[in-house]
């Protein structure tokens, strides 16, 4: 088993006939992911790309014994879709959608945790274990199999760093995008535990950004519990306080969550922090 997923992970896609859902389901299949069914209410009986059966509900998809779901429905419907997946006890629930009200996320994540289920996202690029399984939207071509695990709150920035690793001959054991929202299912600490336990992972890259204190908590956790080498990159150094940089996660409020505070915390935990994304491979050596 890789980190959370592997080549046997059976995935369903809630919203498979949508613009995003269909594009990324197709890309996932090209990557090698076992997409066993798609959900699109009212379209049961049809097939996605002539191979993947489409059903009306997660309940109906249970005959395919899915291990994971990708939720790609409009933001107002995400909570409902997530509860539908939780109700069927889908073990891994990845939410692609952005702009989900965080009150909805709080509720659905609380309930999933009560039931012992894992949520990734919302508003993140998902999880990739090259070349076992990809659930999410990371570009297929940037990966290389290897021993570096990446955890990031950002999407494109993750790709930038993963590509830079690949270009420098450093393959990845797992890449998880936590999501850019203030409330997400997995925080760094949850992912760090998985990476520490994963035999394939030798080194870890954390990609952080301004806002909140999850990087600081991660730094503390690394100091106390992580034996593997960790390198970090933090973005938002140049962001003015109080301005929201693009996604809800990235904001500095009342001096809390500045890049300086995060870099300091990492340095104190013995974690080197790269100035530029492209400096990450060098620091990993």
């Amino acid at each position, binding site marked *: 088993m890789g980190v959370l997923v592997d080549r046997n992970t059976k995935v369903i896609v809630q919203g498979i006939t949508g613009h*995003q859902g269909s*594009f990324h389901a197709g890309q996932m299949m090209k990557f090698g992911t076992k997409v066993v069914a798609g959900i699109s209410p009212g379209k049961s009986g049809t097939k996605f790309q002539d191979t993947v059966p489409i059903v009306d509900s997660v309940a109906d998809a249970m005959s395919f014994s899915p291990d994971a779901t990708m939720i790609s429905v409009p*933001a*107002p419907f995400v909570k409902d879709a997530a509860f539908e997946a939780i109700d069927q006890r889908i073990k891994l629930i990845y939410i692609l959608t952005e*702009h*989900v*009200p*965080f*009150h909805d*996320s*709080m*509720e659905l*994540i*609380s*309930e999933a945790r*009560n039931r012992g289920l894992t949520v990734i996202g919302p508003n993140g690029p998902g999880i990739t274990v090259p070349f076992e399984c990809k659930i999410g*939207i*990371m*570009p297929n*071509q*940037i990966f290389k199999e290897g021993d570096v695990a990446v955890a990031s*709150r*950002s*999407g*494109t*920035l*993750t*790709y*930038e760093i993963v*590509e830079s690793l690949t270009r420098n001959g450093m393959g990845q054991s797992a890449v998880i995008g936590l999501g*850019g929202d*203030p*409330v997400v299912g997995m*925080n760094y600490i949850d992912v760090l535990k998985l990476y520490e336990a994963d035999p394939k992972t030798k080194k870890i890259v954390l*990609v952080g*950004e*301004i806002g*909140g*204190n*999850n990087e600081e908590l991660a730094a503390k956790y690394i100091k106390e519990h992580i034996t593997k080498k960790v390198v970090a990159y933090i*973005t*938002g*150094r*140049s*962001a*003015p306080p109080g*301005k*929201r*940089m*693009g*996604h*809800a996660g*990235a904001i500095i409020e*009342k*001096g809390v969550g500045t*890049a300086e505070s995060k870099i300091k915390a990492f340095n104190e935990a013995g974690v080197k922090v790269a*100035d*530029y*994304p*492209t400096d990450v491979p060098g620091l990993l050596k």
Partner: protein
Amino acid sequence: MNLYEYMGKDIFRKNGLPVPEGYVVEKQSDLKEYRKPVVVKSQILLGGRGKSGGIKFAKSGEELKSAVNELIGSKVRGLAVTKVLVEEMLNIQHEYYVSITLSREHRAPILIASASGGVEIESVPQKEIFTRVIDPLIGYSDYIGREASKFMNLKPEIASQFRAILKSLYRTFIEEDCELVEINPLVETKEGKLIAADAKVIIDNDALYRHKEFSITDPEKTPLELEAQAKGYSFIELDGKIGVIANGAGLTMATLDALTLHNGKPRNFLDLGGTDNVEIVANAFDLVLKADPKAILINIFGGVTKADTVAKGIVEAKKRFNISKPIVVRLSGFNEDEGRKILSENKIETYPTMMEAVERVVKVAGGA
């Protein structure tokens, strides 16, 4: 979305929270007859209004008129005052602090309260602050208020008012999809009543579709930012010279960081998001051009957004807006070769890495 004090108090009133009697004034003719001493408070979205002269007291009709006169049209902490809130003056016995906000760590609401109110909560010693994470599936329950009021050492008659306020405040936080509801100070009057003397409310932007009443204008945004919002772009004006278009919030921030580390100052933040639409790329230029930068940096890592689409958008924008300012492009990822080809055919500079592009744009923009 940050709400003005008077908007926050309207929400408080609707949810049964005690607020002072008062009304909003935009011009002298809005003033009602003077009856008792009042406070005149500038409606701006920054704290520290008192120290900056943004709050005045009036003990006569004349004083009220002149306070309004002085404040409206003035600048407080650099912000133009267009509205003031005229409120009954409270006989302050004590000032408390209470708020509910999001704990990202716990993915849950967190209650913060202190008997030391009226000052920034950051300046209050930790041991005087009560904090409590609330399970979002259960919500606020009265025992939490009992623990808080014991911590704060409230007298029984104040404690029961305080607990009623917590209940309403939590309901407000949930019903209005708030990121923050804060009362500072929560005033205990000499008459023994608790009243919310101030109101700070932040609504989750992503939930505004459930609260149409607020979605008209975000008072914190510049006109250009509002225009961008209406067009669906995540756009922030900054005070440098270099226009920026990138995709993904993280990559866009990283681009600004790289510029700054190279002594280049960004004029803006613009996250294209994930798009494969030429028009969306072209229109992004319109916004950036309105901010009048010295040069424009495009930094794209193709994924959902395809590099060739972006290239076409850039070419289209250059023609449509007749752009003569230097444009420096970095293109990577999905369909990057095709994208670079389109650009080079149209004589637009491209670089394969962010670093090279950043160095180049700082140079052509004439340094910082």
